[in-house]
């Protein structure tokens, strides 16, 4: 590893001043992984609030039977964009933000392998996000097709559909470039002595997620491009009259769509695998098994896509194959849950906010996993497909799972990033309010699905009223609670108490043991010596 060359007096026009540009140009031109990580995180939080506002509109309309606030067409636009913005604008960029901040520090590298590519990977996102928002303002509005964008409904949509397709292409490009960067960095830039089986599990989960992204995102690009050409260039991929098949779209989409959910989940698992050992003051139980389980989940994730299509009319052999493959995923996932519990067992536990969110994750993600097991059984799924049971399931794993894990990670690493502590009392309020309101929204949705309420409807029969009311009240509470989170983060950054050098005595990865708090703008310009 060559020593970093000083850029004093380089042709940048700021002779003798080593450090970032000031003002807006710093953020536009930065190639620093810490700056880029910060931008990803702020972008993701902004998108989270935008997507959250859409959820509030949805839950407001669903508070009571009848159409009170929006018309059915706009309602479909809300559900579609809520999904696209949350998945592609909020949760995925959040974990890329963590990857950028942490991977170089955790492996003892000075930055990502492709620092300029990193800048572009981020800056594609605000443009993509803008395209999604702009689609509301073109004739026909945003597409009302669900985030899954099934054909041939998509062929009926106005211009908003094309803007969305373009946005999806940009988002995909950003993810693919980011993953190439992450995989290359992890494989090539680990400090001497940092073998693969020695690096933090967070890095392992991102290494595997990187491969998933590279494999899956191009498939989504294919699906939406075929939609674009069916819409405008006379192709009939999804039109029987021309020899095509709507179900072809579903196969292509879900071949991307299933790995996609593990793309969201695996980095979340990685964060939890850092937080739980730190607050248990005990090493992660079964490190090797965790690596193998994560790999097994990733490989299996390519073989189960049609469990999203059990009602499409596939032959019985196919139903059975996908059922068996899907239920199998429960085995490595269970191994991970048991290993986290075993990490806590006989540890020396403390319950600061990161640990609270991690324990909340463990409890609620497992519940989501079990509703997934119920859904995996094709016979039962016939009743539950396209109902609120599915909505409940994926919000348990993506909100109580991935989002809570992101909260755990932010509280955990804020001191390292900013040199300041967040307010612990307020953090605990954020946790408990989120827990209570989250369950109020989504636990009752299991009942709605079982009782027969379809998803993606703006109005419903009377027997579904009570659970919907409870769910909507929970939604307003949960939404307000996230404003508290914004306050906590801003307060920490601007006026938080100075953090000690080692705020978490049980944390043992390189960023905690070998770097000051806050971490310097450039770290590990010479690699650390590992014993």
């Amino acid at each position: 590893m060559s020593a970093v060359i000083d850029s004093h007096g380089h042709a940048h026009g700021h002779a003798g001043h080593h450090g970032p540009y000031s003002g807006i140009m710093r953020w536009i031109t930065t190639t620093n992984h810490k700056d880029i990580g910060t931008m990803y995180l702020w972008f993701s939080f902004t998108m989270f609030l935008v997507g959250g506002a859409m959820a509030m509109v949805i839950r407001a309309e669903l508070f009571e039977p009848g159409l009170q606030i929006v018309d059915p067409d706009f309602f479909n636009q809300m559900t579609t964009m809520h999904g696209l913005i949350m998945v592609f604008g909020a949760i995925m960029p959040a974990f890329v933000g963590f990857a950028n901040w942490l991977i170089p520090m955790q492996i003892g590298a000075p930055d990502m392998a492709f620092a300029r590519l990193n800048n572009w990977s981020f800056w594609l996102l605000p443009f993509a996000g803008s395209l999604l928002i702009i689609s509301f303002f073109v004739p026909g509005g945003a597409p009302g097709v669900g985030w899954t964008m099934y054909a041939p409904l998509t062929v009926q949509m106005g211009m908003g559909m094309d803007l969305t397709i373009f946005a999806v292409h940009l988002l995909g490009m950003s993810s693919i470039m980011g993953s190439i960067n992450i995989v290359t960095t992890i494989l090539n830039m680990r400090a001497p002595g940092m073998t693969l089986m020695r690096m933090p599990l967070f890095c392992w989960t991102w290494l595997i997620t990187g491969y998933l992204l590279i494999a899956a995102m191009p498939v989504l690009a294919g699906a939406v491009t075929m939609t674009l050409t069916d819409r405008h260039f006379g192709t009939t991929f999804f039109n029987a009259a021309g020899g095509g098949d709507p179900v072809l779209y579903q196969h292509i989409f879900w071949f991307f769509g299933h790995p996609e959910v593990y793309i969201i989940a695996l980095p979340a698992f990685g964060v939890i695998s850092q937080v739980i050992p730190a607050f248990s003051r005990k090493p992660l139980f079964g490190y090797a098994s965790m690596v193998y389980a994560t790999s097994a989940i990733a490989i299996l994730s390519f073989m189960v896509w049609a469990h999203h299509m059990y009602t499409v009319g596939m032959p019985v052999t196919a139903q059975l194959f996908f059922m068996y493959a899907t239920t199998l995923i429960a085995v490595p996932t269970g191994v991970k849950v048991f290993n986290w519990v075993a990490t806590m067992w006989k540890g020396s536990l403390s319950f600061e906010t990161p640990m609270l969110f991690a324990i909340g994750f463990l409890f609620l993600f497992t519940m989501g996993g079990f509703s997934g097991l119920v859904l995996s059984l094709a016979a039962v799924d016939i009743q539950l497909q396209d109902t609120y049971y599915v909505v409940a399931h994926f919000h348990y794993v993506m909100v109580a799972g991935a989002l809570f894990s992101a909260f755990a990670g932010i509280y955990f690493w804020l001191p390292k990033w900013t040199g300041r502590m967040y307010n612990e009392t307020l953090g605990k309020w954020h946790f408990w309010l989120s827990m209570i309101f989250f369950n109020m929204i989504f636990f009752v949705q299991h009942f709605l699905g079982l009782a027969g309420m379809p998803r993606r409807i703006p109005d419903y029969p009377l027997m579904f009223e009570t659970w919907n009311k409870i769910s909507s009240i929970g939604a307003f509470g949960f939404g307000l609670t996230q404003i508290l989170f914004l306050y906590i983060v801003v307060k920490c950054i601007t006026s938080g108490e100075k953090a000690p050098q080692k705020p978490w005595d049980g944390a043992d990865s390189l960023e905690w043991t070998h770097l000051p708090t806050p971490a310097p703008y450039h770290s590990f310009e010479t690699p650390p010596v590992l014993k």
Partner: protein
Amino acid sequence: MMPSKSKYRAARWAAAALLAAFSGLAQALEWNLQPPATPIAADVQGLHEYVMILVIVIFVGVFSVMFWSVYAHRKSKGHQAAQFHENTMVEMLWTVIPLIILIFIAWPATRTVIAQKDTSNADITVKATGMQWKWGYDYVKGEGEGIRLVSELSTPNEQIEGHATKDAHYLLEVDHPLVVPVGKKVRILTTAVDVVHSWWVPAFAVKQDAIPGFIRDTWFKATETGTFRGQCAELCGKNHGFMPIVVKVVPQQEYTAWVEQQKKRQASADAAVQTAEANASK
């Protein structure tokens, strides 16, 4: 650390209140699959219950361990951390045992999946065509062959917009329901004319996507008479929530009488069309 007497009392009150609320709620609210009206639906309900019990047992087991740890292994209680971080025997056990449990789940599920797919030897075959936003029913084989209906939501707009009180079957009522005889195997062919829809009757545990340009099928055999209601189960545009399915299961004699009546109605409707066409060409 002994909790005070008043803490116990408060806990008892809370538990009693919760129990009362829950049982009252359970009766008043919908919280489980609809009562089954076919053997397959009963199978599915049983399978779901079986898996739920298994899952709850495992969940309670695992999280009792975790919550015990949260209580007993706290740093504030002075617990010192052990440093073990692997145990091959334990890890093998908790890989193999879940695998075995999964086999115990997949086995009964397999039987039901195979049964759900067996559409052979139907007594009556009806084609359900999904359209934006209503269903068309064509009786293509068996008693009633030749009958054609279009089945559209009949809830008045005033109710949807809040200018009139909503009736009991709000959004679950149609002008012309599908009528079938009890105890006969009915095969439903599904297709669509525009986008993907899905034909779903929860009480029958039947859901089959209706795909434009293709024909899929499913089946049910209703074991009791009654009116069973479902909704479209695939997003199909703005009125996806407003194209319900209503199936009237009637005794055999009533069905035969209904078939007669439909055939007469159709014959006179066809005659009227013929006359109109003849007049128009004059």
